[in-house]
């Protein structure tokens, strides 16, 4: 690098650039928070949904599944599973685990009550109605 561009100039560009782009990021964040209620389906967050989210977290579902494409890639996407499978299938599925088929991937039995499973399904329904710019590309997730 040329000698006319000194270290202290480089340092100033670093501070200036860092601060400017962080402020821009904050501005975009502020705008995002403002328009989010139109997209995030938050009007449908009920106590059941909140409890379902907690069950989702405390059973570490994200350790195998993705939700809106984020998580582990070991088991199917669940952001749209409510649409793909429907509530009855999901309930039966959770209750029927593990399948015990030799050699196949196994989902643990979490011993959830019927009410817990209903709340978890309420959470998955809420998640499926978030406006995700039409992701995933098709029903398979």
């Amino acid at each position, binding site marked *: 690098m040329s000698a006319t561009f000194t270290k202290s100039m480089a340092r100033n560009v670093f501070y200036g650039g860092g601060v400017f782009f962080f402020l821009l990021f904050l501005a975009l964040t502020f705008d995002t928070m403002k328009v989010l209620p139109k997209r*995030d389906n938050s009007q449908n967050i009920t106590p059941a949904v909140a409890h379902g989210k907690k069950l989702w977290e405390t059973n570490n579902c994200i350790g195998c599944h993705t*939700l809106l494409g984020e*998580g582990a890639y070991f088991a199917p996407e669940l952001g749209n599973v409510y649409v793909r499978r429907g509530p009855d299938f999901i309930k039966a599925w959770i209750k029927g685990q593990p399948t015990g088929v030799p050699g196949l991937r196994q989902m643990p039995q979490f011993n959830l009550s019927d009410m817990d499973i209903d709340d978890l399904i309420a959470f998955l329904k809420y998640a499926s109605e978030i406006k995700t710019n039409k992701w995933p590309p098709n029903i398979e997730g």
Partner: protein
Amino acid sequence: MKYTSQAVAKPYFIAAIALFLGQILFGLIMGLQYVVGDFLFPAIPFNVARMVHTNLLIVWLLFGFMGASYFLVPEESETELYCPKLAIITFWVFLAAGAMTVLGYLLVPYASLAKWTGNDLLNTMGREFLEQPLPTKVGIVLVALSWLFNIVMTVLKGRKTAISLVLSLGMLGLAVFFLFSFYNPVNLVKDKFYWWWVVHLWVEGVWELILGAMLAFVLIKVTGVDREVIEKWLYVIITMTLVTGIIGTGHHYYWIGTPAYWQWWGSIFSALEPIPFFMMTVFAFNMVNKRRREHPNKAAVLWALGTSVMAFLGAGLWGFLHTLAPVNYYAHGTQLTAAHGHLAFYGAYALVVLTMISYAMPILRGRAANPEKAQIMEMWSFWLMTISIFFITLFLTGAGIVQIWLQRISPTPMSFMAVQDQISIFYWAREGAGLVFLIGLLVYICSFFVKGDSRAIE
């Protein structure tokens, strides 16, 4: 060793390597579970193995960063560490917290662990990479603050260099952004939005400052190139990191309920994210070519050059591969993401920590460089690990492309599990490459025990 307090780095480095080994063993378990689904079930279900694998990665890298800064800051500041005792106490606290957390994952059902550790007081658990129980999270904050305090106090009482300043800034950012792990709203979109403030702003933001500072330090030492030149490069590189990486966070905001304009912001800025990594490659090779001395530690030079190349490939190239919104629409949440994650973490962060260890460990053991036989073994381990992780990445990339085609593009899309069956050959190949990686790591560990003529310290 110029300052006796630098010795506190040694236990940090040893712990880092031990946890690295643990990470790889759990990686191999998971890799096998991808193809032999019921392997170790129900003793170690996949989600548990994954938590251990990713959490050990984070913890060993943090151990590496801490050890590295306790080694390099006294030398940069030309003074003893502010409080070596605090560094040792912090070490044991962090190691105990880390060990108990991993044991908790392995021995207790996650839901019970959450219940017993106060998750009902403040829900923070069960989110990817932030699975730690509340007490562990609080412990991480305390450890980070103790580390930051010790380093900043050392810098303040001694010489202030660009390297120690950038390192301190990186550490400050690490501590501050981790605080967002305590924010977990019921609103899933907001939860995900701020989750990235920890995950993305760590690995594609402030951690890169730490990476740059560590690499610059080692390059000054092994090449003897003028500090002014190297520090100028450092500033330019990390400027580009922040300019591209902060708004680049937008590449995570395409499909999680956030406004569509993020597709533009995210695509444009994250497409520029390879630039700082490319500059890092040019920088490292330039400095080594212009070297004014032949440092006896050849292995350290290899690790440093390797970091610059593999970080560019993993973080830069493989990141770019799926970062543009129209591509990401199909690639999001597939094995392609896993491919990128593996090469990026290895290339940027695992390698820079191993670079620091390679440079510092002989000095901590009272010599400028290891005996030639030990260095040759170390270089073998570099090539074994680097080539095998590259193959892991290639196999996962292949798996990802076929997965995207069969599940998301083909006119007759297959279900997730049916596709997984179709791509099992890639998973088998990945597991094989993983075994070679393990061999490389074992060779690396053995290299510390090779005896021979060691050159006296300068």
